[in-house]
């Protein structure tokens, strides 16, 4: 019995807990992508860099707060700085929209042109991040590192395997739940949110009912900026802030959005968790789990790992390909277009 429990704890420690944290980060990222896609109808290549910028703003403000001696005690200071970071990246997104994207809406450019434009925006954001904080790896987390340490868990339960929960992981999940709840409250309950959904669903009908498209677009950018900042900051707290990482996150985020069906917020959340858990399940080495569950004579020699962790990124790609082959509209599609 203890062996089974040990095996379960191992899986919880290495798959379930990190999966929930990483999944919430991806879900928030995918939500931003999917909102922009739903309203502006293009894949925003610059979204990864928006996350990097948002995280950078938050990090700079949390440094300033730390230098003033303000903190949240056991929680990371970045949480306190988050609202300011969100505000800063909202400003940036609005400026970008005014200076760049608005023109293409007026000339009714094709979606491909928008993507190329977002490549230009990506270059600028990328340069900005590196220009301001440089390409180095920085630690964003402070306060208490763990909510539950592996050792405490072992002494409390008497098991051989420990279960550790990092503060950043818990913070990720809690923040994501709050952000998603607020987003869905906004989309489903408020008039503006409803007009946004109407616009995303059918542009012409929305225009006929007197919805102001510029206002919808503005709100979309605000939401996308906020979601990107939260996602980027949470990822930065959980791992560390590395400017180049955010571009590599682009693929899992887009895969999550496509799995959920482009333009579908609920699907994006589901997609984020699908991608996160598959990455962890496929790249986890099951050797010790199997050793607990099987008699000693059958203990495996290898790592019992399907894919080495170096190939995490291949998992999201494979899922993307499978979805594109089987159901290109996404597994959670509502609309048919």
């Amino acid at each position, binding site marked *: 019995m203890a062996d089974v429990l040990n095996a379960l704890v191992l899986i919880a420690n290495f798959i379930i807990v990190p999966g929930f944290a990483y999944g919430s980060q991806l879900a928030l990222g995918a939500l931003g992508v999917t909102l922009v896609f739903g309203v502006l109808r293009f894949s925003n*290549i610059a979204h990864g860099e928006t996350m990097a910028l948002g995280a950078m703003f938050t990090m700079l403000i949390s440094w300033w707060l730390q230098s003033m001696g303000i903190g949240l005690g056991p929680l990371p200071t970045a949480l306190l700085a988050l609202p300011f970071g969100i505000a800063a990246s909202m400003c940036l997104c609005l400026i970008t929209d005014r200076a760049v994207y608005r023109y293409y809406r007026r000339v009714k450019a094709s979606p491909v042109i928008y993507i190329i434009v977002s490549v230009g925006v990506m270059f600028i954001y990328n340069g900005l991040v590196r220009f301001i904080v440089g390409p180095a790896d920085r630690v964003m987390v402070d306060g208490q590192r763990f909510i539950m340490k592996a050792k405490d868990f072992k002494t409390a339960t008497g098991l051989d395997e420990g279960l550790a929960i990092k503060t950043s992981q818990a913070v990720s999940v809690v923040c994501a739940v709050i952000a998603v709840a607020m987003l869905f409250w906004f989309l489903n309950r408020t008039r503006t949110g409803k007009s946004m959904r109407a616009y995303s669903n059918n542009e012409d009908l929305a225009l006929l009912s007197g919805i102001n498209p510029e206002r919808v677009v503005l709100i979309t950018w605000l939401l996308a900026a906020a979601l990107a900042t939260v996602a980027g900051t949470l990822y930065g707290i959980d791992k560390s802030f590395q400017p180049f990482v955010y571009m590599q996150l682009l693929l899992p985020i887009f895969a999550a959005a496509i799995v959920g069906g482009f333009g579908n917020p609920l699907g994006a959340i589901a997609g984020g968790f699908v991608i996160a858990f598959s990455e962890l399940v496929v790249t986890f080495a099951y050797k010790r789990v199997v050793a607990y569950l099987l008699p000693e004579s059958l203990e495996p020699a290898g790592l019992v790992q399907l894919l080495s962790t170096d190939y995490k990124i291949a998992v999201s790609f494979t899922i993307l390909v499978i979805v594109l082959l089987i159901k290109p509209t996404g597994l959670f599609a509502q609309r048919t277009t």
Partner: protein
Amino acid sequence: MIQSQRTIMLFVGMATLLALVGIGQGWDVALLLVNMCIISAIMALGVNIQWGYAGLFSIGSMGFAALGGLAGVIISAKPVPGAWQAGGLGVIGGLLSALITIVLGIFVWRRLAHLGRWRYWITGVIVLAGFIIMRSLMGPAITAIEKIDPAAAGYLGGMGLPILLSWAVGGIFAAAAAWVVGKVSLGLRADYLAIATLGISEIIIFILKFENWLTRGVKNVTGLPRPVPYEVDMIASPAFQGFATAIGTNAIAAASIIVKLCYAGLFSAVLVLVLYLSEVALRSPWGRMMRAIRDNETAAAAMGKNVTARHLQVFILGSAVVGIAGAMLTTLDGQFTPTSYQPLRFTFLIWVMVIIGGSGNNLGAVLGGFVIWFFWIEAEPVGLWLIELITSGMAQNSPLRAHLLDSAAYMRLLTMGLLLLLVLRFAPRGLIPEVKR
């Protein structure tokens, strides 16, 4: 002004800029710049074939270029004695079993449509089984290969053939990868091709980085043979020393320049060939069909053109050209470094070249390749100079000044983004617009 005059003037302007670099920074630097410009121009031609001819948005040139580089390693690196005996069979068996699994999986998937939900499970089990067989075959083989002289080799090694051969092979590698990606993602929304190509190019880089048995991974493969003479050999030969004194320079400088000129000759030959073939294709009935598809897919489909098949064709062609350029780049470097492949440099910068040069115009793509590479390299000294100018009023030891000077290198990212946005907005057809035919 007539467009042909404008084109000539722009190219003359570009040549003048390069000449200025030659005079200011030395001809050695200028020629290196020219060689890289030519390679960039060929990559831009490849992307232009996809975007300009057919309107396909692919952001995977990094992967295809890296596959070209891999071809350079496989074709030309020195064979590692004993590597094939140690693990060749296992590797080939593994790759073969992967291929069989995929074919079997597709076959089962297609044939068992009537089984409903069961076919998901059956296909899944087949793929999983095939994957495990592949791993069990390759695992020991890889360990055996990587044990052979890890400091100098530790990989399968190449075939020791002339590296020029790898240019063609690189094109074939890239074409094969493009076929797979295109099969999956073409015929759907334009965004899906973009994301799928982004994914495959990342994965190709990861494979090249981590599969040590194939490419030595981050340990790099160095010392690939050259298609042109080595400087040392030239300097050693008395005839060459005589030649150098005759033209009034020292032998070392002359050798270095002659080597670069040889490369430039080889690269130009490829550039001219690719340019000629693309122009001929663009003017042919095939080119007209491609433009018809690009401008109105529905109408072209109604005329009986198989849009998806043509898209696949043009996607493969463009990727092959990028692959050739990738192999040429590895040839010029004489080494293969998987970590040097960055999406900004190898995918998005190429896009900037195509858009700024003039999408749909081959000469435009070539010019874009030259101009953008030139500024990509020269933006750094210019940016540094600019920042020094701006901050010259500040105190010598001010931290802000030091930080700004440190960050000058990232000016070029900002410049490229700004340039792309400005051209898209105010001159969306680029420096040399597409000719209306």
